[in-house]
C-alpha cells in the first residue's frame, strides 16, 4: 500500500500541531465556537448529541494491520473502547474529549493517518471498490488513481471552501460497480476505449440526501493523463456556479440538474481547454510511481481449491458451508479468496468494533491476509488476500470474534447511520431498527431463501444510511415529535442504478419490521423462481403487490 513520503508526513504532523493551537485557544476562550467550528470541522471533529465525534479518514478503505492496531489503541485511550466503521469507508469515534484530540491526531499521524477534510465543504475521502486490486473482473486497480486524487485534493487551496461537501468514488470494474459511483458528486469508472486504451468514464451530479439524483456521464472517455486536470475543471465550474445561498441546493447535483448536463459539460470542457496541458497533466512516470505502491504481492503459486469439497470434508459443517457460500468471494489469483468479515452480528450496531476486536483483526490479517484490511461502504471489513487452504482456520477465528455471520448481501447485512442515538441531525433512531431486523431474520436459511437483498436505513433525510438506494430503504422521520419510518422499495446502487420509491404512510418503530417482512414474504410468494432476486421481481411487478402486503395487518 502507499507509504507517506516526507511531504505527507510533514503535512499531517504540522496539521495536528496547528489544530493543537486552535483547540488551546478555544478552550481558553480566546476564540468562540462560531470561529472554531469551521476549523474543527475541517479536521473531522463534529459536535453530536452526547459528545464530540471524530471522523478519521481511511483512504479508499485500505488499512494496514499496524494502522488497525492504532485505531484500537485510540479507541481504548481516547474513547470508550470501540469505533464505528461508516458508510463511506471511514471510522468514527463517538466520545473524544476536545483537549485530547490534537494528541490523538499526532498518534494517527505516526501511522500515516489523519482526519483532514473528513467534514466541511471540501473534497472528502475518495472511496472505492472494497475488492479493488483482487477482483477477478477488474480492468485495472483503481487505488493508484484514488491515491493521486487524495494527494491532489488534500488542502487544495482552490477547493477548501466549496459551496458544499464533495465526494468522489472510483471503480476499476466497469461491469460491476461496487463503489456506488452513480451516487457520488463525481464517479469515475475505469474503461477501455475502442482502441483498447485505458482511461476513465466520468460521471457527475449523483448524490443522495434530500434530493437524490443518479449521476450523468459528462465524458465517455478521458485519457489517463488528464484525470486531475479534468477533475479540476469540474470543481472549478462547480465552485463558480454552485449555489451558496441555500445549503439544500448547494450540491453539484443541483447545479447539473438546473444547468442541464449538456450545458454543464460545455462549461467544463471549455474550462478544461485552458488547463489540460498544464501542471496537472499526469505523466506515466508519476502514475507508475504510485502504482508501484499497489503492486500485487508475491502470491504463492497455489491451485484453486474445491471449496464445496472443503466444506463437505469438515464433516458437513453447515455454518462453515454457509459462510463459504455467502462471505467468501473469488480472487484473481488462483488458490486465494476474498473474505468478508461481517460487522452485522445480532445485538450489535452495524459497523461497531471494539478495541480488542480491532487488535484481533489486525493479528488475523497478519496471519491470513498479508497484513491488509479493507473497510467497505456497507460497513463490513474485507481480508483481500486469504489462501484458500487457510479458510477453515480463519473461519474458526472469526467465529470466535462474532465476525463470521454468513450474511453478506443478505437482509441482515443492513447498513445504517448512527441515527438519533448519536447524531445531532437525526429525526429517528436507525440502529434499533437494524437490530430488530437482525433478530427477526436471524435464521440464515430464511435469509438464503430470500437471497440477495440490500436493506439501508437512515435516521433522517440526509441519507447517511443510503436509504434511497437500498432494494428496501428505511427512512426515519419525525412525526409530531415521535419517531416514524417510511419504507422505500426499488433502490439499487450498482450498474442498474435506481432510486427507491416511498411505499406509503410511515410506520411506527413497532410496525416497520413487520411491514418489511410482509414485503419479503410477498416476494417469496410471487417470484418466478429462486433465481429472480427481490429487485428483479420488484421491477417486473411494480409497487402495488408489495404495498398491499406491507399494509396488511397480519399475514400470519
Amino acid at each position, binding site marked *: 500500500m502507499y507509504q507517506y513520503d516526507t511531504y505527507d508526513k510533514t503535512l499531517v504532523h504540522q496539521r495536528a500541531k496547528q489544530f493543537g493551537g486552535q483547540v488551546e485557544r478555544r*478552550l481558553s476562550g480566546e476564540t468562540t465556537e462560531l470561529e472554531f467550528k469551521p476549523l474543527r470541522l475541517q479536521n473531522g471533529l463534529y*459536535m453530536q*448529541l*452526547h*459528545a464530540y465525534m471524530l471522523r478519521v479518514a481511511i483512504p479508499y478503505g485500505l488499512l494496514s494491520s499496524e494502522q488497525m492496531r492504532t485505531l484500537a489503541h485510540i479507541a481504548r485511550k481516547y474513547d470508550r473502547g*470501540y469505533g464505528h466503521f461508516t458508510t463511506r469507508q471511514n471510522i468514527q469515534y463517538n466520545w473524544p474529549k476536545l483537549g485530547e484530540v490534537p494528541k490523538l491526531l499526532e498518534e494517527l499521524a505516526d501511522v500515516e493517518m489523519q482526519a483532514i477534510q473528513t467534514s466541511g465543504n471540501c473534497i472528502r475521502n475518495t472511496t472505492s471498490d472494497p475488492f479493488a486490486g483482487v477482483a477477478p473482473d477488474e480492468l485495472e486497480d483503481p487505488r493508484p488513481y484514488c491515491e493521486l486524487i487524495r494527494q491532489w485534493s488534500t488542502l487544495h487551496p482552490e477547493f477548501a471552501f466549496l459551496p458544499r461537501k464533495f465526494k468522489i468514488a472510483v471503480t476499476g470494474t466497469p461491469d460491476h460497480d461496487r463503489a456506488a459511483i452513480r451516487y457520488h458528486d463525481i464517479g469515475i469508472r475505469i474503461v477501455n476505449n475502442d482502441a483498447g486504451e485505458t482511461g476513465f468514464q466520468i460521471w457527475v451530479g449523483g448524490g443522495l440526501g434530500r434530493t437524490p439524483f443518479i449521476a450523468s456521464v459528462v465524458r465517455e472517455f478521458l485519457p489517463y493523463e488528464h484525470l486531475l486536470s479534468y477533475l479540476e475543471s469540474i470543481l472549478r465550474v462547480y465552485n463558480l456556479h454552485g449555489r451558496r445561498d441555500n445549503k439544500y441546493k448547494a450540491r453539484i447535483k443541483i447545479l447539473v440538474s438546473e444547468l442541464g448536463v449538456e450545458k454543464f459539460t460545455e462549461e467544463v470542457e471549455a474550462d478544461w481547454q485552458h488547463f489540460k496541458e498544464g501542471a496537472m497533466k499526469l505523466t506515466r512516470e508519476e502514475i507508475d510511481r504510485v502504482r508501484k505502491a499497489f503492486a500485487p504481492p508475491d502470491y504463492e503459486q497455489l491451485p484453486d481449491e474445491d471449496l464445496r469439497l472443503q466444506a463437505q470434508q469438515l464433516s458437513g459443517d453447515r455454518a462453515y458451508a454457509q459462510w463459504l457460500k455467502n462471505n467468501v468471494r473469488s480472487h484473481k489469483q488462483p488458490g486465494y479468496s476474498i473474505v468478508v468479515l461481517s460487522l452485522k452480528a445480532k445485538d*450489535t450496531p452495524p459497523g461497531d468494533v*471494539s478495541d480488542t*476486536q480491532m487488535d484481533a483483526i489486525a493479528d488475523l490479517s497478519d496471519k491470513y491476509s498479508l497484513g491488509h484490511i479493507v473497510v467497505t461502504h456497507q460497513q463490513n471489513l474485507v481480508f483481500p488476500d486469504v489462501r484458500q487452504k487457510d479458510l477453515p482456520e480463519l473461519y474458526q477465528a472469526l467465529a470466535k470474534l462474532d465476525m463470521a455471520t454468513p450474511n453478506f448481501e443478505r437482509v441482515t447485512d443492513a447498513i445504517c447511520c448512527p441515527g438519533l442515538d*448519536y447524531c445531532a441531525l437525526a429525526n429517528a433512531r436507525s440502529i434499533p431498527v437494524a437490530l430488530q431486523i437482525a433478530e427477526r431474520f436471524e435464521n440464515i436459511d430464511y435469509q438464503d431463501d430470500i437471497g440477495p437483498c440490500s436493506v439501508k436505513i437512515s435516521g433522517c433525510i440526509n441519507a447517511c444510511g443510503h436509504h434511497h438506494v437500498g432494494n428496501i430503504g428505511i427512512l426515519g422521520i419525525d412525526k409530531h415529535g415521535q419517531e416514524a419510518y417510511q419504507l422505500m422499495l426499488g433502490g439499487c446502487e450498482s450498474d442498474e442504478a435506481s432510486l427507491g420509491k416511498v411505499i406509503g404512510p410511515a410506520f411506527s418503530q413497532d410496525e416497520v419490521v413487520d411491514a418489511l417482512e410482509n414485503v419479503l414474504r410477498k416476494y417469496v410468494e410471487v417470484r418466478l423462481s429462486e433465481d429472480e432476486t427481490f429487485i428483479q421481481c420488484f421491477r417486473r411487478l411494480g409497487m402495488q403487490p408489495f404495498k398491499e402486503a406491507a399494509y396488511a395487518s397480519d399475514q400470519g
Partner: protein
Amino acid sequence: MAKVKGTHHVVSASLTGTGAPAYLKSDGSWASTLSEAAPFHSPEEAEARAKTADRSDQRLVCDPYTFTVLLADGTPQPISERERIRAEGPSVRVRRPD
C-alpha cells in the same frame, strides 16, 4: 414561539471540553442532568437566557438553545424523543461485546 398549555422551557448547550449536554440551572451555572435544569414559564424568557449564555459562557459551553418540557413533580421531562435520548444517552449498547 407559541406557548403550549402546561409546558415549560429549559436552556441547554454542549460543554466545550467534552461536548456533553449541559442544562442551565436557576443560579446561572450548568448542570449535567436535565432534572437540575431551571424551567422557564415563557419561551421568550428561556430564549433570552440562552442568548445571554451564548455571550457570557461561550468558553464553557457551545450553542445554547431552548426546548420544551413538561414538569413531573417539578422536574423537567423532555417531550421530544431527541431530547429524551440526549438526556439519557444512546438507547443501544455503546460497545460491541468482545
